């Protein structure tokens, strides 16, 4: 249990929330990660600012160029909203998060700020080249997800700043979406390695590819060399096999209680072939 004396305040609006955060408050929305850290005593903020119900952070709105997802929108809400139909890759990944209760509590903003190398929702955000929209005492700014996340638990967030929303630009065409995470079991698992992809094809060959790997480096990574090498390849696992070492060398995994670095590297390579197989099987 965490301390009941822990102060939590609920601001009326975003402006008040920003004042409280500037005064040293730590934002909390779903609490699925933060409350665990408080319980373990690895973090002890002065006080918490409950932002989970602020209307400014609860928007889910389609614009001409893409979808705006408020930071406090939950995974369950994204999974059930018709607005995410245009982003099947997002749904594939969100479905693998925790349990239904965790999905109903956890938020997209929370995942982005936690910056876990194993964040399941982060893989599609890298694939979709999402923008993180921030607000703070000095106004608003926007950063690509890959510039916002700097390392495990490290972000470009400045003191007093808050993630307001995540912007997903619409894609050209309908690329094949792929997401697979490998862990010790299927339920509630933290990935040993995960691969997400968007593959545009033309005439039985790869026209364009975006790949993102989770849990094999300090952040989610896009192995650009492999993405480029895939262009023009036939859709056949055998024709991709020589890229496995290239993909493995793009990873910088660690050994921890879940898996060794070597195993993570091997799994990442196997996932590339699984992607090819799944692409071949789709017809």
């Amino acid at each position: 249990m965490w301390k009941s004396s822990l102060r939590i305040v609920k601001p009326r609006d975003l402006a008040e929330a920003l004042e409280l955060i500037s005064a040293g408050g730590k934002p909390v929305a779903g609490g699925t990660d933060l409350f665990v850290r408080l319980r373990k005593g690895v973090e002890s903020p002065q006080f918490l600012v409950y932002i989970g119900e602020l209307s400014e952070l609860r928007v889910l709105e389609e614009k001409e160029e893409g979808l705006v997802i408020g930071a406090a929108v939950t995974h369950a809400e994204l999974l059930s909203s018709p607005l995410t139909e245009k982003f099947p890759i997002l749904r594939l990944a969100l479905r693998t998060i925790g349990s239904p209760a965790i999905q109903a509590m956890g938020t997209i903003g929370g995942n982005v700020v936690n910056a876990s190398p194993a964040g399941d929702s982060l893989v599609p955000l890298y694939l979709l080249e999402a923008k993180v929209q921030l607000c703070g005492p000095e106004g608003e700014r926007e950063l690509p997800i890959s510039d916002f996340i700097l390392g495990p638990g490290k972000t470009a967030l400045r003191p007093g700043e808050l993630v307001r929303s995540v912007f997903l630009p619409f894609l050209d065409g309908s690329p094949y979406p792929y997401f697979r995470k490998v862990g010790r079991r299927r339920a509630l698992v933290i990935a040993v390695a995960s691969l997400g992809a968007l593959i545009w094809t033309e005439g039985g060959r790869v026209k364009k590819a975006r790949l993102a790997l989770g849990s094999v480096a300090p952040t989610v990574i896009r192995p650009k060399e492999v993405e480029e090498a895939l262009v023009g390849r036939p859709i056949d696992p055998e024709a991709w096999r020589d890229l496995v070492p290239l993909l493995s060398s793009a990873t910088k995994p660690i050994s921890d209680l879940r898996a060794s670095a070597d195993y993570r590297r091997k799994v990442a390579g196997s996932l590339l072939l699984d992607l090819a197989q799944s692409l071949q099987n789709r017809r």
Partner: protein
Amino acid sequence: MLLRFRLNGRPVEVDVPPGRRLLDLLREDLGLTGTKEGCGEGECGACTVLVDGKPRLSCLTAAIQVEGKEVLTIEGLAKDGKLHPLQKAFIETAGVQCGFCTPGFIMAAYALLLVNPKPTRQEVREWLSGNLCRCTGYEQIVEAVLRAAEELSR
């Protein structure tokens, strides 16, 4: 803070620190000990309750997060002295062994049937993946949920 919310259909007003866990508020302040604490960190599902119709882990919820909301616990399921079909089905299929995980399973299953009244066996299994039973009576638990779904859709 003076916290107001609805609990099992009735309005509640209680003076509580805003950072108190919902689990402790329910069990210790309000005497509803049906909701259990297993792991205390969101892995086991024993503390599952419904907040505004959605499943929520009460061990990772602060009191302030249910302000103005509708909370449903295992104690709120039976009506007029009659068990809810889910509770009855858990007894009939022997989906209860030691019973510790049961309230969490039943509340999670209740949340499933709200969004999917006729789930397949696979859907029940996947939905309940966040609830652990250490007596390993999963088969009977899945059976109970399917039986209750049938009973409720009659």
